[in-house]
Structure formats: structure tokens, C-alpha cells
């Protein structure tokens, strides 16, 4: 457990200093319900952001609640689409189709100004 914890702490300093080890990939989950225009837009917007800011160190899992309704409760989903940044901590929730790029970056803590 200790190395993992150390890794977490390291992550907390800021994404740009992230070494590209596979264990420290960004873990992103996108919750949608079916192929709605909003969910398609959200996934497309997310991919663009990840490619430009997190190339090679991200993983996106798309969870379709229409197929897995029980996940809505388990993961506290209310609005759709919802993007959850599972890793690095802290967990962040970003609602909407991610069309507002600036707000999305703020939400994901990918802007230099938001760093500690």
C-alpha cells in the first residue's frame, strides 16, 4: 500500500509533473444514457481535451446507464452526461456535454491557475 499512497501524493502536486507510468493514468468515467446528442457531444469533447492535455496518460470508461441503471445510485449520478474524475484525487464531477471547454478544464483541474 505504501508505494501507492506515495504515488497519490505525488499526483496531487499537479498533473503536468506526472510521470507517464501506466499506474498513474487519469481515470475518467463518462456517464450517459443511450446515444443522445448530448452524450455523443460529451464524449467527443472529452476526447479532444484528453488528447491535447493528457495524451497517453488517460483512460475513459463510458458507462451507459440505460444498460446499467443500478450504477446511477452506486455512483450518485443525478444529471447526465456526468464526467467523473476518479483519479487523480480528489474526485471531481463535471456535468454537461463539456462544450464549455474552459469550464471543463477548470472542472478537471487542468488549468495551471488551479494548481496548489
Amino acid at each position: 500500500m505504501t508505494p501507492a499512497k506515495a504515488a497519490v501524493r505525488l499526483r496531487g502536486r499537479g498533473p503536468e509533473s506526472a510521470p507517464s507510468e501506466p499506474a498513474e493514468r487519469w481515470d475518467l468515467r463518462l456517464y450517459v444514457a443511450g446515444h443522445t446528442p448530448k452524450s455523443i457531444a460529451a464524449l467527443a469533447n472529452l476526447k479532444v481535451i484528453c488528447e491535447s492535455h493528457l495524451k497517453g496518460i488517460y483512460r475513459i470508461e463510458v458507462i451507459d446507464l440505460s444498460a446499467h441503471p443500478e450504477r446511477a445510485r452506486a455512483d450518485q449520478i443525478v444529471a447526465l452526461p456526468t464526467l467523473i474524475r476518479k483519479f487523480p484525487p480528489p474526485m471531481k464531477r463535471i456535468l454537461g456535454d463539456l462544450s464549455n471547454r474552459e469550464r471543463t478544464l477548470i472542472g478537471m483541474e487542468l488549468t495551471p491557475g488551479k494548481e496548489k
Partner: protein
Amino acid sequence: MRLKNSVAVPSLPKARSGVRGLDEITGGGLPRGRPTLVCGSAGAGKTLFSVEFLVRGVEMGENGVFMAFEETAAELSQNVASLGFDLEHLVATKKLVVDFVRVERSEIEETGEYDLEGLFVRLGHAIDSVGAKRVVLDTIESLFSGLSNTTLLRAELRRLFRWLKDRGVTAVITAERGAGGLTRQGLEEYVSDCVILLDHRVQGQVSTRRLRVVKYRGSSHGTNEYPFLIDAAGFSVLPITSLGLQHRASAERVSTGIARLDLMLGGGYFRGSTVLVSGTAGSGKTSVATAFVQAACRRGERCLYFAFEESPQQLTRNMSSIGNALAPWRKQGLLRLESSRPAVYGIETHLAFMHKTIRVFRPAAVLVDPITDFTESLADNKAMLTRLIDFLKMEGITAVFTSLVSAEMHVDQLEGGVSSLIDTSIVLRDLEREGRRYRALSVMKSRGMPHSRDIREFRITRRGIDIAEDQPSLSDSPRLRLTARISDPSAPRKRAGR
């Protein structure tokens, strides 16, 4: 309110709420398959109301979903455990789903268009997982503090309420009371089938809870404010049903517990009638009233005694000193003593409490000692007594009230403004003559029976109340002589009590 003679009107299908009293006010319950809005300020009882709606639903075979926006499932279970609701058990046996919806603004970033489909999916899944017929959303307005796009929220809530209707679930949606309207976010515009308002008011440091059905589309309903209680048995609303004068009148007589008083009345009180024993302080009202309790218990009838001046222990001790042993009846479960101070609750809370206790205990006789001092306002007192008496008459319960009057009061004032509702009125007096005090009893009125017009001296002895056959010791008083009658209407029948 009660539509007994509404024959041809096709009324809405209703789902019994299971909340005691509410179904009577609404003529059968909440609109089945539709949402009902329950609004009220903080602490008004919205959550308890909704929990009871679900728990009673389960008891009637309708499973439920509770979506909590303010409390976690654990907090909720804990909060309602005091009312005897075991939510965890209901959840474990798949009768109920409790889902805590957490929306924390600080963790959320809004980045474009979204909708509340996640909530719909979640609710739909919860409904399907237990086959729920009832749904509670408590308090959905919390979403407005978690999400910033109010226009979107309003549109989505409107869609949600329509969706609930389409699913055919009977839903209760709670909302905080707003300054301008019934709710903060104007939800009453969207949930238009049935709106119930809960109110918790404090007047003169005494709190009273009230419930009002603001709106019930397609159904008649009581429009009054109804007092309600929240206690260990849950919610209970006191329906003030429009009595009409439809109660049955029994011709059966029940003993007053005082043999000579039975004679004066020609056999005792009518069963189901209302008796008032009034008198000045120390004139023996409680003693006369408890004699009746004693007689009822001896007949094996259950009695309920509301004591507003003495504690059960004090009363038991004091009455046993005059041969009225109450303790054995209490032990046997025939007598129940309920003591409280009049000033502790508002008059309506008292009324609701009495109502509930009577419903639970199902007594044949009720004693309220005394009916005075509940409130300064005579009008309020009268309104409450009217409701209580109406209820007792409907239930066929013989009621004995005591009433304290001051010596200067005129006879007309003896009945606390409810003279028309009292069937038998007994007046006790404390008279001073030649260095001695005398107690005197007279029957001021007794409907439907010939009765003695005497003013009789009586004594309270260790063996009970002893009414003199005539009034030798008082016969010198010119005032008393005026009203004295030798004839005793019951005399020929001579149905001596004990």
C-alpha cells in the same frame, strides 16, 4: 366534507395514505397514481409524513421508494425509529428502497447542456427493483441549491412529475415553505393535483401543528385547518368531521355511580350522552365524576380519564380516600389515566391527543377533568369542546366533564358556552350557613328524562358520596326552599342502585 349522499359523482381513485385522520379529510386518501405536494416550513413534519405514507403503504401491500435529498438512509432510519418505523427491516425485506441523492455544489462543475436523466434512471430502477407503487421525493428542491441552472431544473422537474404520473405511482413530493408562495421554487404550479400544507405555529409559547388540504383537484375535501400530532405512534390528524346531528341516541341508562343521583335522574345518565358537572373549587366535582368511572369499571366497561389538574398517583390516592379505588381498575386495564397540564400544549394539540387516545383505547366512558383552563379564549374553548363532544357522541361514548366556576358566575355561564351540547348538567355548590359549610347538588337539566329539581345536600364520606334524601339541614334557607320539590320522579320505580 363527508359525501355520504354523493351518488353519481365519479370520484378520483384514491390511495389510502394510512396517515390517521387524513383519509377522512380527503375522502379516501391521496390521488392514486398522481403526485401530491406536501409543503411546510422546517420542522413541520414533512419527512415524517412521507415516511409514514410509505410505511403504511407497505402494510397495505404497496411497496415504496424513498428518495432522500437531505438525509442519508442511515440518518433517516434513525430519525424515524422513534416513531416505531423500522426502515432497515423494510429495506432488507425488499419492500422499500431508500436512496440518498447527494448533490454537492462544491464538487460540481457545469460545462454545458445536461438533463436530469440520471435521476430518472435511478428512480425508475428503484421503482422496478421492488415493484413500488408509492414514491417519495424529500425534498427535491434541494437540487436547486446543488445545481445552478434553474431554468433547466424547472423544466426537468416538470418532466419528472409528468413521468411519475405516467409510471402510475402515487407520489409525495415535499417542499420547503416559501416566502411568496407555498413553496420556494413554486412547485405548486407543477404538482397541481393535491397540495397539503403542514404548519407548526407557536402562540403564547405553546406550539400547535396544523394540516390543511390547500387543493385537491377533482375531489371535495375538508378545507379547515386540522390539528395533528406526531408522537410515538406516528402522525395523526384530527378530522373535524361535519357531524351533522346524525349520532344515534341510546335509551339505555348507565348508573352515575351514586345511588341517589341515579334516583334523581330516574335511572342514571343516558349511554352516549354528555354530562357536565360544574361547581366552585372544592365542591366535589372530581368526586362525583369519578363515581361514574367507578360504576363503569364495575360494569366491566373501559374508561378513559383525562386529568388536567392531578397526576395519576395523586388522583388515585385522593379518590381512594373517599372509597373510589381506581388502582385495581387501572391494573385490570379497564381504566386509563392520562394526566397533563392544560398549558403544556395548545388546545388543539390536547384535542388531537384526546382524539387519538380515545381511538386507541376505545373506552365506553370518558372523563375530562376539568374542561376549563385550556385557553383564555372562550370562543376557542367552545370550538374545541364542540369538536370533542361531537366526536364522543359519534362514537357513542358517555362523557363526563367537570367545569370549575367561580362563585359569582351566573348559572348560565356554567357550561362554558357549550350549553346546547350538554345533555345532563349537574351543579355542585358549596354553601356556608351558621358556621358550617354544606355541599349541595342539583340537576340543572337533563334532556329526555324527568328529573328531580331538588337541591340536595351531599357529603363526601370515606365510602363515597352520600346524597341526602331531602334537605333537612338546608330547609331553612329561603332560596333553597323556593326550588325545593318533594316529588322525586323516580320514586315510584324505586330502582335502587347499590
